[in-house]
Structures are given as structure tokens and as C-alpha cells.
């Protein structure tokens, strides 16, 4: 983090949303820069060097997905996309273009803050994957140094693929990971079409590490998009 109070750039054309986010973020120790158009937003990224960008996909002058793609040509600042429900393909397109995560409108402040924290944490690490060797959430402990997974202190035996899948999710802990990305990283580039591999292994993994696989606590499905490993 560059300063004590991280700087958030909000690119959003709806005044009501800006008003709500301004109030919410400023009362939670974030500094805020606002932009109404994509052009203005890009200028702010260059001029103000924000720590994280909140980007609404429906902007008047440019498509949010295109903006993300342009931004990624020269900036690694985390981008959290805000979009309405039911536009899964928009979310995937934005994540593909380089966005880090997304929020579905309407959302609660708690959700927004959690996403911001995850984004800032990942940004502060030099590169994805270079996180601490031991990952803990609730009862679940993944020790990558010992290649050991325990739930409530009890060791869980995983197959190599299951382990690889879990570790990939740990790398992006807290963030959504696209199905395609998981398939590529776990099974390789040729398996990208085999989404059922992922679903079958995810089900197996849940049965091994979730107390109630039908109501997963950590390995969450983002319908139509991918998966997310909860990290807090």
C-alpha cells in the first residue's frame, strides 16, 4: 500500500451510485477519486495513480471491457468491475480483458470492502503465487511447503489433480477465478473445453474438505463465471 489510506478511483456515471460509494468508502478509511466517463477515468489512472479501480461496465462513452483492455496495456492497478445481475458474459469478458474481480449490483458494503481488501493484498504481493506458504481460512489449512491439507487439524488426502486445483485457487484466494483459467492451469491448454473435468474435481474436493458439500463454505461457485476460494 502506497499510503495509509488507499486511493480508490471510481469510474461510474450514475450519480446515485457515486453518492452511495463515496459515503461508504470515505467512512471506511479509503480516499476516493471520481470519474464520470471512461476518458476522465483513464486520465485519473495516469495522473493520480490509484491503488484500486472500481469500474462500472455501462459507461456512456466507452464499453467497460474495452477500457479494461486499454488500461492493461500500461497499468497493473487492480480493477474491480461493477455490473448488473444476469450479464455473466460481460463479467467473463471483463475478467478476460484483465479485470481482477467483479461485484454484482446491488451489493452490500461488506462485500465491496472484502473485494477491495483482496485486491489490495494481491497488488501488494510482487506477483500472484508469491504469497505466504501457509494459507488458512476457518478450519482449512493449506501448507504448500509441506504439500499438506488439513481440515480442523485432520489431514485430508488429495489426489495430485485435486491438490493442484486447490493450490491454484489458493494463489488467487478471495478472487474469482475463471473456469477457463483453472482448466488451463490444472489440466493444460488442451483441456479448456472440458468444463466437466473441473466440475467433477470441484465436487470431489468439496466432499473432502467441506463439512457440508451441498452448502460449501470455502469453495464457492460463481455461477456462469468460475470459482472463488473464500479467504476471510
Amino acid at each position: 500500500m502506497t499510503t495509509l489510506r488507499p486511493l480508490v478511483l471510481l469510474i461510474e456515471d450514475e450519480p446515485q451510485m457515486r453518492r452511495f460509494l463515496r459515503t461508504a468508502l470515505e467512512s471506511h478509511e479509503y480516499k476516493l477519486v471520481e470519474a464520470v466517463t471512461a476518458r476522465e477515468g483513464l486520465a485519473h489512472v495516469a495522473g493520480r495513480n490509484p491503488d484500486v479501480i472500481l469500474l462500472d461496465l455501462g459507461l456512456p462513452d466507452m464499453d467497460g471491457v474495452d477500457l479494461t483492455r486499454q488500461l492493461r496495456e500500461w497499468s497493473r492497478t487492480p480493477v474491480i468491475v461493477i455490473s448488473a445481475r444476469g450479464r455473466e458474459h460481460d463479467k467473463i469478458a471483463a475478467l478476460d480483458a484483465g479485470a481482477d474481480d467483479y461485484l454484482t449490483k446491488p451489493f452490500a458494503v461488506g462485500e465491496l470492502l472484502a473485494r477491495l481488501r483482496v485486491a489490495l493484498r494481491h497488488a501488494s504481493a510482487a506477483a500472484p503465487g508469491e504469497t505466504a506458504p501457509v494459507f488458512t481460512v476457518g478450519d482449512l489449512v493449506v501448507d504448500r511447503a509441506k504439500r499438506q491439507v488439513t481440515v480442523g487439524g485432520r489431514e485430508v488426502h488429495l489426489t495430485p489433480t485435486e491438490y493442484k486445483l486447490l493450490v491454484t485457487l489458493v494463489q488467487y484466494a478471495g478472487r474469482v477465478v475463471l473456469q477457463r483459467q483453472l482448466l488451463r492451469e490444472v489440466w493444460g491448454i488442451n483441456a479448456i473445453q472440458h468444463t466437466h473435468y473441473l466440475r467433477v474435481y470441484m465436487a470431489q474436493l468439496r466432499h473432502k474438505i467441506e463439512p457440508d458439500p451441498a452448502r460449501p463454505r470455502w469453495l464457492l461457485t460463481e455461477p456462469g463465471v468460475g470459482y472463488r476460494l473464500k479467504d476471510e
Partner: protein
Amino acid sequence: MLVCIGPNPAGSRLVRAGKRMAVSLKCDWIVLFVEPPAQRIAPADRDMLVQNLQLAQDLGAQTVTLSGRVVADEVLAYARAHNVTRIIAGKPTHPRWRDKLFGSFLDRLIRGSGDVDVHVITGDEDARRAAPRHTAGHPAALGEYVLAALAVALCTLVNFGAFRYLSLTDVAMVYLLGVGLVAARYSRGPSVLASFLSIALFDVFFVPPRFTFAVSDVRYLLTFAVMLGTALAISTLTLRIREQAVTARDRERRTATLYAMSRELAGARGLTEIMRVAALHLRDTFGAAVQFLLPDADGRVVIPAGSPQAFPLDETERGVAEWVFEHARPGGAGTAHPAGARAVYLPVPASGGLIGVVGLKASDPARLQEPLWRRQLETFAAQAGVALERAILAERAQHEQVEIEAERLRTSLLSSLSHDLRTPLGAITGAASSLLESPGSLTEEGRRDLLAMVLEEAQRMNTLIGNLLDMIRVESGALQVGKEWLPLEEPVGVALIRLGDRLKDHPVTVSLPPDLPLVPVDDVLLEQVFMNLLENAVKYTPPATPVDITARAVPDAVLVTVADRGPGIPAGEEGRVFEKFYRPTGVAATSGIGLGLAICRGIVTAHGGRIWAEHRPGGGAAFHFTLPLSGPPPEAPPAEPETAVGMQ
């Protein structure tokens, strides 16, 4: 005014005379042809007749073809039935003796005419004589004569054998029986031969002195004369009965085909089906390819959408069809009007005017112009017209019904929406304004309560709007089902997590068999089905009652059940619960606008499955739906050794 014509050149003169008279009298006129039964008209005469009838039509007459044995009686019966005041007939051109022998048409007509005026007009002096007619059904073959002779010989043999037990009268009777049988089987020639032969043989073999033509008593000559007269009378009457039987059979057959078509048309539903049935019957009866043409929005007759093309329609054919539709008169091949077409086109009448045109393309188009066929064709066309009109009216009525239904839905949707969107908005407005306006007087607990309410109501509105959008997507056909093979557990889990707190009063058990196959579904849509079914259960069941989600594999599908222990679905409303804006009767109004289950049905149907509700044994409601396992199941992920990670 009625003009009677026959198949001869005088007909055209009669028709023209009729036209002149009709014009001077300023009256409608009808041209009538009575076709004698079982009598074949020579091809040349047939053409003449067709021409005359066509001429009459062109001159503005109504043409009628009747069938009957006694022409004069048919004409008079028709005249009486249609209020005809004048009858025009041609002067006879045949020799007088024929009238004496067979009865005169004119004589009979004039005597029976009563108060109807009969005009007799000259035929052309140089009129070509009508071609000789075959009075029997078909020319007798030589074989028939031989068989007739054999029959008489057989009679002779029988008589010869039994002569000593028989009187001469009995012998004569046996011969008469033979003549009767011959007449019943064969045509006039063999019958007459049999009659004369019988007399001859009777004379030679049985009348004394036997075995000579000589006769011992003059009285026998009288016997011969009576016998000959009786034989001829028997054969004539028998032949006439046979002719009538043939006519009756023909008529019966025509009536039967017409009846068969009517019956099938009555059972046919929809325009396309009716056209198919009518075309099939027309084709079978008339041996022609049949094409119906109906007017389009611009009033041009075209092949209706969804109906196969029976024969190619080029510009000429189309032009003729349009001419027929415009002028309401037959046209095309074999008619004098718009020439060039290879098919004959008939107007298809209905109660409200012409409904379309039917085209028949036969290998022998002239045959379709034969009066008898033509009349039947018109009857068929009229039948088809009535059926088509019925279908068109039914379609229109159904369309209107749909409109009315849509209008009713719109009204109901608007009132639901204004109520259901305003209720949470009212709560939000109320809570927010009290928070703003009376900050001092509120306790901390009251403040939190109001805020919680604002959040809750806003979420409720969000669900509601989401449902509306889903419904619009289902209804507009914009629902895109992106199927992926996945374990059912995943969408169930997402639905349970997304519902979160709303399920806190209802224990939900999920029991999915471990060997349940993957299902090809759209995960986002299926999750919506589970959400809606669970929300439905929460809404309509008392707190603390359980909800159970189960699934099992059935042939080619997975059957999923979401069952509760609430009050169940009111009897008889199991099907209606999936209708839009349905709310159970006798249950207090709850939140929601009755779209949840309708959306479920839309989504399940889009997956090729079926959803239904029923009473759950032991109490409560059970919602079942199937998810078909369409297509080949995906290949299993590559196998791997069950080596434990972390043990190395």
C-alpha cells in the same frame, strides 16, 4: 328463364336465343343440361356441350347440369324448384316415329309445364346430326352373344331332360328364366338374341310336331308372340333396372367420396391440415395434382405458407389463378378463358364470397370439364371452401382470444406490479424518512430495525425485478440455454448459499445419490429453478417445516424433487400453479407476483424437461422436474492414482 340444351350444335343457337330473350325480359337465366344416366356421350358431343355451357357462362347465364332418366321431368322439377317462368327448348330434329316409340321430350314437357311458358325454337337447319349413341353401357362383345346362346342351349337341355314331367307352359317358363338371366348379365344385343333363339328352339324341340319349325296348331303362333313379347319386356326391364343400378352406384360412389371428404374435413384442424385432406380427396377422386391458393394480405392468391407445392406454378399459371379468383369463374386448361395454363382452376366458394382458388392438374384436363365431373368438382370445391372458411374463422377467433388473454395478462401484470413494487417502496420511503426526520426520538434499536427493514425491502424488490426480467426472457424466447455437463450438487449449493438467511426457518435436506450422473444444464438457469422452488416452499409453508431436495436417475433423464411439509397445493390446482400470476386461492397474499414457478416451467421446458406438482404422500407439496440426459455423456476426466498429497 330456363334454357334446355343438349349435346348438339343447336345448343349454341338456343343459348344465344336465350340470351336475347333474357335481355329483353330483363330476367336472370339458367342454362340446363340433363344428362341421361349410364349413357356415354361421344367425345365430339362432349366438347360441343362444354363449349355451349361455356358460351352460356360467358353470356352471363347460370349453368346447371342435372342427371335423370326422364329429361322432361327433371327439367320441370328444377323449374318448379327455382321459380322459373319460361322454358326454352329446341325443336326436335329427329324423326317423328322416335317420339311415338319412346315418348317425346317436348310433349312431356309441354303437358307437364302447367303455368310455365314453354318456348320451342328452331335448331340450325344444317345442324350436324348428333353422333349415334350407344344405349347400352358398352358395346356387347362377341363372347357375350356366345354365352347368351349357350344359356339358351342350357335351357333347352334342361327342358329336354325333364320334358316328360313338364307341360309346354313350364318349358316356356324355363326359357323366360334363361332370357331373364341373360338380360341380367349382358347387354341388349345378347338379350334380344336369347329371346329369339328361345322361341326358335322352343318351336323346334318342344312344340308339336317336334324337331321341325312347323307348327301343328295356329294357337302356338300366339304363344310365340306372347313369349317373345314377354322375353323382350323382361330383357328391357332388366336392362333398365341395371342401368339405374349403375347410375345409383355411380351416384352412391360420388356421394360416398364426397361424404368421406366431408367427414375427414370435419375432423381436420387447422388450415394446412384441411388443405391437405381436401387435396388428397380431390386427387384420389379426379386423378389430378391439387393445389389450393389462398389470398395473401394484398389479396393476391398464393400458395399458403406451410403447404407443399403440388405442381410448379409459373407466371402463366399464377395469372390464370388470379383471373379465376377475380372473376369467380373457372379458368385454365380445357376452358375458353385465360388460355395457356396447364391446370384447370376453380373458384373455391364460401359463405362470405370466394375464399380462394383450387388448381387441378390432370393428365386429361378435358375430362374435368365433363358436366358430371365438373358438377362434382364444384361440389368438392364448395365443401373444401366451407371447411377452409371454418378454419380461417377459427384461426381468427383464436387469434382474438390470444389478444384478449394477452390484454388480460397485461392488465393483471400492471396491477400486480404497481402493488408489489409500491409495497416495498412504501416501506423503504417510510423507514428512511423517519430515520432522517426524527433522529433524536429513535432508540438505537428502533433505528437498526428501520435500517434492516430498508435493506430487506430493497432485496425483495431486487428479487421481484429479477423475476420479471427472467420472465420476460423466458416469454420472449430470448432464453439462451448454455448447457454444460455438471453435478447437480453445484447449482443446488449455489441456490442454498444465495438464499442464505431466508432459509433460516426451514431445515433443508439435500440427498443426492453419489452415483447420480452429470446432467447437461445451464448452471445459472438451473440455480434459478432451485432458488424459485425453495423460495416458493419458504413462502407457503409454516416455519420449522422441512424442505427436502432429492434426485434420482430415470431412463434418459434425472428426476429432481423439491418437497415440503406445508399445507400442500389446493386440490385441482396442481397444473395451474405454473401459470403466470397464479396465486393459490384461500391463502393470504404473500410477497411475490406469482412468477417464480412460471419461470421454473420456462427454464425446465427450455432444457427439454417437464415440471409438475403433486400432493406429497404424508402431507405437503412435491415439485418434480426432469432434466433429459440428451447427447452423449462427456468423457471422464483422465484417471489418476489415488496417491495422497502430503504423504511424500
